[in-house]
Every structure is written in C-alpha cells, then in structure tokens.
C-alpha cells in the first residue's frame, strides 16, 4: 500500500539513478560473495531484479510483484545449487539498501521514501531465505525416496527361491515397500520360497519383529514359505529377552544356512561334483 506516494517517488529516484545504483549494488554483492562470482554475471542478474523492483514500487502493473517473487525464488535456488549459504543470498538482497543509502544519504527529503523502501527490501531478502529452505526440504525428501527405492532389492537365489537382503532400519514405510516388492516378485517368478535376510538391520526390537512377522504372514498368503536369516548373536539375545516369538517361522544365522534349508524343502541336495 502506497497511500502517500513514497514508493512511487522511490521508484522514480531508482529509475533515474539506475546505472550508478546497480553498479554499486553489484560491487557490494561481489564483495559479499568473496570473489566466487564475476562482476559481469552479478550486474546482469541484479539489473534484471532492479528493474522488477522499480516496476513493483511504481505499481505500474500487476505482474511485477509476481515476476519479482519468481525471479527471487530462481536466484535463491541457483545460489543454493552453487553452494552459497542462504545468508549470503539474503545479504546480497539487503545490500541494495546500502547502495541506495550511499546516494540518498545527503537528501533529507528522501528519508520517508527510504524507510518504506527499506522495509520492502527486507521482505524480499527474507523471501530468499524461505525459498532456500523450501528447496532444501525438497532435496531431502527426494533423497529419502531414492534411498528407500535403493535399499530393497529382491534377488533370485535359486529356482523358485527369492531373497530380500534388508539393509538399514525397518520401519513401517520400508516394511510396506518390502512387502509389495517381495509379493510382486513371488507372483512374477512363481517362487514358493522366500528368504528375508536381516544381517543389515541394526536393531531388532518388538516393532521391527512385528513388521517381519507381518511380511511373513503376507508371503504365506501367497502360498510361499518364508525363512528369516541373518540373526546375529546379540540380536538373538535381544529377541529372547523381549519375549518375541517367531512361532513356526524358521530362523537361521546366515543366508547360506537359509539357502540350504530352502533347497532341502524344495527336495534338492548339493553334492560334490
């Protein structure tokens, strides 16, 4: 809201002193980024922002504010990608105030204009900070999804025997993924035996055990038998002391033992050549 025309007057001032202010602003930004960018690049980028800021302040059209927000978000993202901290990006925006101040310092009549201009620039600088956070959140969630995908392969151990080597913690999200992957593999391969190897699962508590039992239940509903392997000695002690019962599910120390059991169930025997 610019009821007293301060913003419009500021916009006029900025327009009149375009080259000098953009020049000074670029110098300040380059100094703040400690030589990691070139003056030319920065001038080009800031020149564009400057014209958007002027348009917004002069309320010349409705699109200026939206374009400015989009341009700031894009700058925030690309600075983040290039490894600059959000503070460096925000300070870059804030240094426009410094640049303008150096020119209006002697003009007392510009004080109200400068104050309201300063507030607008504060908002813009904070916006870059928010954009940075949002971008990081997105990266983190993308990486989590990728990690989830990577960590549950289903491999074929032998004809009609599949195995799932689990690595990492087994929470309900992973369990869901493991169940889906394993069951789909059973349908595709027609396997009637599955081995779930938990050597890579760091802790087995009651929750993890429940997830395992659920998975075995689901596998059995598809007519396949399930063996759990990779029971480490400490894990065995924890399971017993927690009172977890695996019932009639076969559990083995190593994948090799589980394979031997599965072959036996399939009526196969390994003999020397």
């Amino acid at each position, binding site marked *: 809201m610019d009821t007293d025309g301060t913003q419009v007057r500021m916009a006029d001032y900025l327009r009149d002193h375009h080259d000098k202010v953009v020049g000074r602003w670029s110098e300040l930004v380059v100094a703040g980024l400690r030589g990691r960018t070139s003056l030319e690049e920065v001038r080009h980028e800031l020149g564009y922002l400057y014209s958007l800021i002027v348009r917004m302040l002069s309320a010349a059209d409705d699109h200026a504010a939206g374009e400015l927000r989009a341009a700031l978000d894009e700058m925030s993202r690309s600075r983040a990608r290039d490894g600059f901290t959000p503070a460096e990006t925000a300070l870059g925006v804030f240094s426009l105030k410094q640049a303008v101040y150096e020119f209006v310092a002697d003009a007392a009549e510009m004080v109200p204009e400068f104050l309201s201009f300063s507030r607008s620039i504060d908002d813009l600088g904070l916006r870059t900070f928010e954009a940075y956070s949002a971008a990081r959140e997105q990266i983190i969630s993308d990486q989590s999804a990728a990690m989830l995908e990577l960590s549950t392969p289903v491999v074929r151990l032998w004809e009609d025997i599949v195995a799932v080597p689990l690595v990492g913690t087994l929470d309900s999200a992973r369990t*869901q993924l493991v*169940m*889906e992957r394993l*069951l*789909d593999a*059973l*349908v595709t391969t*027609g396997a*009637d035996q599955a081995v779930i190897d938990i050597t890579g699962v760091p802790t087995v508590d009651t929750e993890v055990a429940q997830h395992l039992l*659920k*998975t075995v*239940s*689901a*596998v*059995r*509903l*598809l*007519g*396949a038998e399930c063996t759990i392997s990779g029971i480490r000695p400490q894990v065995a002690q924890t399971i017993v002391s927690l009172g977890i019962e695996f019932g009639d599910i076969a559990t083995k120390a190593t994948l090799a033992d589980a394979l031997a059991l599965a072959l036996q169930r399939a009526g196969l025997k390994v003999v020397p050549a």
Partner: protein
Amino acid sequence: MEQVPIVKIGRTLFVSIQVDLQDESVLRLQEDLADRLAATGASGVIIDITAVEIVDSFIGRMLTMIGSISRLFDARTVIVGMRPAVAITLTELGLSMKGVRTALNAEKGLEILNGRS
C-alpha cells in the same frame, strides 16, 4: 447378487471368483459349496481369487469359514491366486487365514491337494 459357478473336475471342486464379491454372494457361495460337497463327495476345493482386487475382513472370515465347512466334509481347501495388495490388506487386518492352505495358482493348488507338494 451373482451366483459363483462351481466346477467339478475329478475329485476337486473349482471355484473361480471373477468379480468383487458382495457379502451376500459369499454367503450364497458357502451354501452352494456345502451342497456340492455333500452331493459329490469331493475331497478338495480350490478357490481362485486371482481376479479379486478387494477383500475386506468379512470376506476374509467367510473364506476361512468355507475352509472349516469343507473340513466337515473331509475335504481340503486351497485358496489360490491371491493378489499382493490383497495379501497385504489381510495381513494388516490381522487375518492370517489359519486353517486354509494358500498357493500361488490353481496348478500349484492342485499339486497340494494331490499330495505331491
């Protein structure tokens, strides 16, 4: 309400469920199966649920009950072709379908009934 067809091949009754079952259809199936078991003296029942996408706890219990009814006629039941999504749902619902065997498909189900598995 659809009537699910029951086909007799040898000593086995085949039931192939092609549509998502309504509750009354399942009850009807139970009755029909009991009638056929009594009439034919079949020793095995295969229920193929490959085409079934949704199974709730009611249907899960009904399938287990069908297993119990068959046992009263000295017949064994094998439920075949369960979809992964259905298996996950039943597990989440805590229904382990005790008392019925399950197999991946009708062929494997038949092997179980004929004692070859």
